[in-house]
């Protein structure tokens, strides 16, 4: 019989397999429009973070929103080691995520045919925060950064 620690690990593994399977199913059905499905997930995560967990996300511009959401994912969730803005101007912003806990899941998704890990919670909450707090509706893109075991998130306005 598995130890409590092994059970926890197995449970996490099972959740990851479920997410991987759902992502593959959605990507097979909708292709690039899979990103559209994630709007609602981003909105819900943002609301839970703000209302149920009492986390404050209320930047006054894109820079502040990205910094604030990034900080929460690093400091409150431990979802990544480092999140920083790599590029920014009026038309776009690029965020680098290093040491991401979703990295292995993203690689597994890619192996199963999901070109872009559109389920990334960091990207989806950042986009949701910009929609809700700034009224901006960015196009989002995500690419792997293998050297940092993380990703590059691009927001285009």
């Amino acid at each position, binding site marked *: 019989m598995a130890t409590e620690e092994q059970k926890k690990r197995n449970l996490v593994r099972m959740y990851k397999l479920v997410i991987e399977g759902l992502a593959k199913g959605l990507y097979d*059905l*909708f*292709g*690039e*429009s899979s*990103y*559209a*499905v994630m*709007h*609602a997930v981003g909105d819900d995560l943002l609301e839970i973070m703000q209302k149920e967990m009492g986390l404050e996300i209320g930047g006054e511009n894109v820079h502040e929103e990205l910094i604030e959401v990034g900080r929460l994912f690093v400091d409150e969730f431990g979802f990544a080691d480092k999140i920083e803005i790599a590029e920014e101007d009026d038309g776009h912003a690029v965020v680098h995520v290093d040491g991401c806990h979703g990295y292995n899941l993203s690689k597994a998704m890619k192996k199963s045919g999901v070109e872009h890990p559109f389920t990334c919670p960091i990207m989806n909450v950042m986009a949701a925060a910009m*929609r809700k707090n700034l009224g901006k*509706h*960015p*196009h*989002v893109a995500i690419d792997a950064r293998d050297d940092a075991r993380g990703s590059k998130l691009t927001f285009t306005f």
Partner: protein
Amino acid sequence: MPSQAQQILQETAKEVDGLLAAGVVGMDGIHIAQVNNGMSSEAQDSYGVKFALVMSLIRKSLTELGISKFEESLVEHDGGWVITRFIGNSNFYLGMAVSKDAVLGNVRMVAKKGAEKLAGVL
């Protein structure tokens, strides 16, 4: 590009009676141009996202049936119609929500012409 699309969309929208909202939407569900005439912007954004999924699903279904070009979908509801039309070979579609006051044939013709113009700038 978005400002040209916005201009074309505004011109196109003027030709439709009973227009509630019109938008140029990416397949990721994000508007790059929109005209609003009685629908809340939240509702329009929500329409944009959901119809991106509908368009993707129809396109995939038709592709599997061997139909290579899906051009337009038309949804009738108790308050009017929603017409969505792919813009050329781009990854965008033109969507229009109109009331029952609209003349459907005119809406379809205007949407087709509008999509052709938009294809030139997207």
